[in-house]
């Protein structure tokens, strides 16, 4: 069991990066809300993103000696979460052919029925528009918009040039705006 090994045997790279276990743990806890929002951006389901978050951070924690500090801690955690999501997606596709991947997006509560109706409609439209995007574009949006990473960090997580991340974000947003044209008035900032 890798978890129970004493602190002293922690891998050298971690020490080199100036991270001790406590600092790393604090870093993970700090990053958690953003990572969860990123996962929500990918799967559209808060329950599922919570589970994915817990599993991803545990993975990060268990593999803490592989964190070499070359990439920032944030980039590292997001990379792990993204890989975990991809693995999870593949497993799910293999496991349940009869049960399609959930595209249901949860919505915030608003007590007014009319608001709920109109908001529900918009939310559904956003969820559908997102689902129509190519996955690499959706990822960029989830990392940038929900995870709150900078474009440079997004590029680092995905392992693509910054320019590529930017153009993906741009195309994705333009396409979303086109799909959401009926809600134009409502979305006007």
């Amino acid at each position, binding site marked *: *069991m890798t*978890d*129970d090994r004493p602190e002293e045997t922690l891998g050298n790279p971690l020490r080199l990066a100036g991270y001790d276990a406590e600092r790393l*743990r*604090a870093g*993970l*806890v*700090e990053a*958690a*809300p953003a990572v*969860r*929002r990123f996962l*929500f*951006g990918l799967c*559209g389901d*808060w*329950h*599922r993103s*919570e*589970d994915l978050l*817990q*599993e991803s*951070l*545990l993975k990060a*924690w268990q593999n803490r000696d592989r964190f070499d500090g070359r990439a920032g801690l944030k980039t590292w955690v997001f990379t792990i979460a993204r890989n975990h999501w991809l693995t999870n997606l593949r497993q799910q596709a293999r496991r349940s052919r009869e049960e399609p991947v959930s595209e249901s*997006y*949860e*919505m*915030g*509560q608003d*007590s007014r029925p*009319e*608001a709920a109706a109109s908001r529900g409609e*918009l*939310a559904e439209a*956003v969820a559908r*528009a*997102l689902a129509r995007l190519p996955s690499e574009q959706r990822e960029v*949006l989830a990392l*940038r*918009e*929900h995870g*709150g990473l*900078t*474009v440079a960090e997004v590029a680092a997580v995905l392992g693509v040039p910054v320019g590529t991340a*930017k*153009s993906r974000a*741009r195309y*994705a*947003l*333009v396409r*979303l*705006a*086109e799909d*959401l044209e009926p809600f*134009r*008035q409502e*979305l*006007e*900032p």
Partner: protein
Amino acid sequence: MNCERAGELLIDLLYGELDGPSRADLLKHLATCRCCADEYASLRRARSALGRLAAGEPPMRPLALGEGTPRAARVAVASRFRRWRLVAGVAAAALILGVLVALLHHHVIPTAIARDMPVEIKRTGVSLTILSRPPEWDRFGDDDLLANQGLVQHFVRQLPGPVQPTVQTAMGAAGNPVTYFSRWPGLALVRDQRIIRHIRPGEAEVRFTDVPAGIWADSVRLRCLDGGQDLAVLEQNYQFDLASAEAVLAKHVDQTVGIRFKDGQEARGTLLSFDPNTLVIRPAGEGPRTIARQQIAAVTFEKLPQGLLTTPTLVWQLANSGQADERQFEVDYLTTGLSWRADYVVKLRPAANAEASDAKSAIVDHADLVGYATVVNKSGVTYEDAQLKLMAGDVNLLIRPSGYLLVWNGIEGGKDSNGEPEQMEEKSFFEYHLYTLTRPTTIANNETKQLEMVSGQGLALRRAYVYDPGENPTAARVVSEMENTEANGLGKPLPKGVVRLYAPDPEGVQTYVAQTEIDHTPVKEKLRLPWGHAFDIACQWREVNTRHAGDDHQITAECSLRNHKAHDVTVTVIVHVPPSTYAAECALPWHVREVGVVEVTAVVPAGRETKFTFSHRFNNLSGGGLRSPYGKE
């Protein structure tokens, strides 16, 4: 800058990652290129759509990253969590909480407040003044706040109290919990009057327990109403580390706890982690196991953690040299968790929904308006028989660099009205309007209350058409204009809020047609309600000629308006020009509405097309000061 380069930089501008000369260049380009400006607007809309998707973010479960957290156990927790969440969550959490509170009463409470037992506190009255949502929050929108980390930093308050359900917490740099408001958390001034009996002479302690969790501890003020100089406040404390089931459990991670099951069996072990449905326990010398909270009758702890209270509590140390046994106090404080908003319903009357009979006259609709105040209490405390006041007007949110939010002082309000007192009574107050409910009401925690605030019958709404190519390049917007006067059936100050329009369909059934938002509207002001776009008016705007001579630029555009209705319409065309515009030319009457916005008035006869050109000149170095020859500026 050309459009290709601008397109590459739009994303940077959108994400606030562009500065310096490129930013200035791009902004300049956007002011003149409709195509790029449109793209930028659509990028922003898409962002705002994504922001709404993430609304309703639930609170986080605690992370269990202990040294001894085996993977298998965690995964089991995760899958159980999903399965039982709905069915068992509430029941199990309530059960555990009940057990713990009972437990704590036995162990902590008597020792902690024993010496205050003789003190008797009775609430005699409470008044709530709930503020309206300040404009700062409108500018960014609820959900943009979290999306844009840079802005969030400005809206941070280091709250002393426990976390609100509407906020997101993270640990700040100094280890203090920092609270990020993801949406307007509400703000109210509470005046709470109490009678306190049996204050002991000398140094005495008084505790108020029913205070909201979102209280701003630094705003609390205790006053003695019976004017005694013989009572002084030595010290005031706000204690908020709540002994919730979660808090007690969290303090026992990695410690030994005892568990008694419903079937009477008992177990002991180290608590590894927990969530609302499951505990993960490692009995001594064994592997870890998960236990559903449903099966648990009680959790026992070896000793109680220090410093936990059952409810947020205000504690005063008083120096009492008076003789009176009964004293009257007033406590006032600001708290988050109480908010209100105005909602309006405008119902068009059937007869007037017909088109104007005379082809030349403008269409006038007749409608009834009702305004409701919706009050939401998420403060954690029920206010019984409270005197309720709702404050309308934009209060100023002062943002300090330390991340502190404070309130007060104001901006323009309106004139007082002589509106008949209805259920809600409206009065001017400083620069605001205050709506007071004329009878006391009980606002329970987690309650949403709707109260009628204003109403008006038979209002005349003049229909107008506004074409703004920047907003919609092909259609004109329908705008209803209404005078907020008594002569027109209203004449009451209208707080900012959402207006919903219902119109009768051909069968006479009221149907929901559109919704829009109005700003605070004083009496005698014109109310403009923009609805959707007109079906039968086709519009087109295109730039036909651009000329540049050094820093001097001239842009000529052609506008075509086609009216497929059976009567004439007057369309107001909005033209956005750079602020540095110094001259404009148009065959139709026009005037400058504000810097950078020109309005052209075009009459389009029934079944005909009206075409005109509009050209403007601007000079970024020396331009500005556009004047219309038609006056009315």
